[in-house]
């Protein structure tokens, strides 16, 4: 893909041990159990662009997000930032330097803001942690950041509970910006907000991206939000990328049966009285994943091959899709 990619995830995988305690296993004669939350995930994010991960609950979005910022170790594969390996840095100094360049914003601004700290200290914390500024310059910078996210410098004196949900998310964004990062992972940053406030925060994130040249990994289950934010989109199902495509391509000509189902099932503000086509079934148990293509029990195009042989990603024009029907040209 492009030369100037900032973030590169290759063959990224994460398996969780979800076994019962040893004694239970012995008594019940049960085996160890593993859950594959992410499997062979790969993507490139060019500098200044937004790559979005979309998928239903449990599809592995947060797991991948956490690995990409280095909060969670992968069981396989790796992540590079500007060519440097996130998990095997040259030395401590290189690791710290890398960490400064990447930040994360979470869904719940409550959880990520210490309730007992004044907002100015919450924002200043990364500045101090990375030794970026000293003395009075720290507070000046905190005030500047508050204004950059649309709050007042005087808001720094207040505590998180004195703000509305949308304002708290602005504070979380200011804090994420404090270390002058180049890359921010945004995990459902507006899912807890009302639409009128969500639009403020999404616009702000887009403006900041333009002004500061930020690169985003944007995680959401909401296709309309993803469409607004992303340049490129990866669709996840049970830990696997089933389709990666440029935004317009994904919405205009989705290829994978699951992508089509997701787009079709999403409620639309302009579809009065519509009843979405019945989708069969629910997401299966991730511990006992279906054989072959994990979507086959729900897929209208499944055939015998789908039940045994897992498909792998094939390259198309502006897209990659993992589906036998697409490969066999029978998905239309």
């Amino acid at each position: 893909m492009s030369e100037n990619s900032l973030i590169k995830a290759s063959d990224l995988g994460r398996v969780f041990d979800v076994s019962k305690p040893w004694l239970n296993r012995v008594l019940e004669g049960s085996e160890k159990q593993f859950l594959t939350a992410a499997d062979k995930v790969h993507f490139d994010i060019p500098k200044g662009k937004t790559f979005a991960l979309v998928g239903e609950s449990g599809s592995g979005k947060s797991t991948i997000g956490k690995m990409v910022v280095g909060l969670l170790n992968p069981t396989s594969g790796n992540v590079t930032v500007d060519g440097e390996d996130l998990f095997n840095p040259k030395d401590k100094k290189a690791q710290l330097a890398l960490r400064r360049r990447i930040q994360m914003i979470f869904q719940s601004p409550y959880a990520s803001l210490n309730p007992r700290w004044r907002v100015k200290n919450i924002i200043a914390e990364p500045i101090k942690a990375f030794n970026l500024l000293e003395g009075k310059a720290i507070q000046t910078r905190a005030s500047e950041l508050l204004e950059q996210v649309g709050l007042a410098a005087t808001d720094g004196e207040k505590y998180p509970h004195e703000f509305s949900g949308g304002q708290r998310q602005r504070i979380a964004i200011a804090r994420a910006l404090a270390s002058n990062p180049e890359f921010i992972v945004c995990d459902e940053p507006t899912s807890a907000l009302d639409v009128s406030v969500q639009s403020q925060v999404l616009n702000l994130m887009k403006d900041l991206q333009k002004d500061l040249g930020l690169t985003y990994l944007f995680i959401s289950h909401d296709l309309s939000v993803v469409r607004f934010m992303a340049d490129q989109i990866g669709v996840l199902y049970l830990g696997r990328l089933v389709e990666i495509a440029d935004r317009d391509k994904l919405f205009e000509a989705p290829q994978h049966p699951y992508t089509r189902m997701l787009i079709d099932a999403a409620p639309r503000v302009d579809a009065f009285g519509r009843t979405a086509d019945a989708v069969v079934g629910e997401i299966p148990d991730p511990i006992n994943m279906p054989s072959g293509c994990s979507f086959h029990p729900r897929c209208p195009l499944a055939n015998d091959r789908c039940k045994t042989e897992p498909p792998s990603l094939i390259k198309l024009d502006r897209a990659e899709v993992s589906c036998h029907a697409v490969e066999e040209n029978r998905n239309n």
Partner: protein
Amino acid sequence: MSEEIVLTVEDLIVEFPTRKGILRPVDRVNFNIKKGEILGVVGESGAGKSMCGSAIVGLIDRPGRITGGEIRLQNERIDNISHERMRKIRGRRIGMVFQDPLTSLNPLMTVGEQIMETIRVHLKISEAEARQRAIAALEEVGIPAASSRVDAYPHQFSGGMRQRVVIALALAAEPELIIADEPTTALDVSVQAQIMALLKKLCHERGTAVMLITHDMGVIAETTDRVAVLYAGRLAEIGPTKDVLSNPSHPYTIGLMASTPSPTGSTERLSQIPGSMPNLRAIPQGCAFNQRCTKAISACFKHLPILEPVDKTDVACWLYDEAYKDEAAEQSKTQLKEGA
């Protein structure tokens, strides 16, 4: 559609006395729901949607209470009746579906036992017959292998299947009204689509009136016949869903629709409403939306607007009042100049 009105809510006021004064999460709300009609109630978090639902079924937390207005079920007042009588109405004449299916299910009873219990309160039939009806009810909501699943406990079902069970339970006594409060908010989109289709089909078939509470405009568009937009405890606009959503008149509804990302809208910029909904302690005098409204005129800061018909919807906004027409026109002219 039949014009028979099942539920009438008239000038409803709910208040919570607190040490710092009286809070009013529901303030003079008016609406009705006809037989076989789905009324959507939409609004931001804290707008008072759930409180309206709780008021109807007499489940407002203490010390809150209804301090004004009337609620009638088939012309019979239910806002001032005893707890005992209300308990009989709940479940029998009014079914409920909440966001978390587990709040409506007893974890210690099989789903079959729970449905049978509800059916037998309502119909004098034998146990065997009730069991057959319970199985039929589960089949109707799309539970596979219903005749064996009827003996399973709630925890043995997935989230989507549990919500189906709750719908079966809510419909078991053949209620006149169903109140569904964010029934699919906790579910995945693919399952949400299934549940909404189910609710829509069953209620239209049986002529059940439905009050569907949600903050999702897409769900409103696809599922409801009419919609009520709540803001800070008050009705901003109410009318046929298509008219309210595609041709809104209240500045808040207009802002809400414009700021909702859509599958076909701009990817450059979303329209936004400045600020956020005031909390109950800080509702301004006059129109509750006046701090955020770009169209506000002098009356908006003094007097509470009341619902009046505008086009095909009912709207609570001074802009459409004869007395202020000139000021409103003047105001939009200056805005155009400033914008230029």
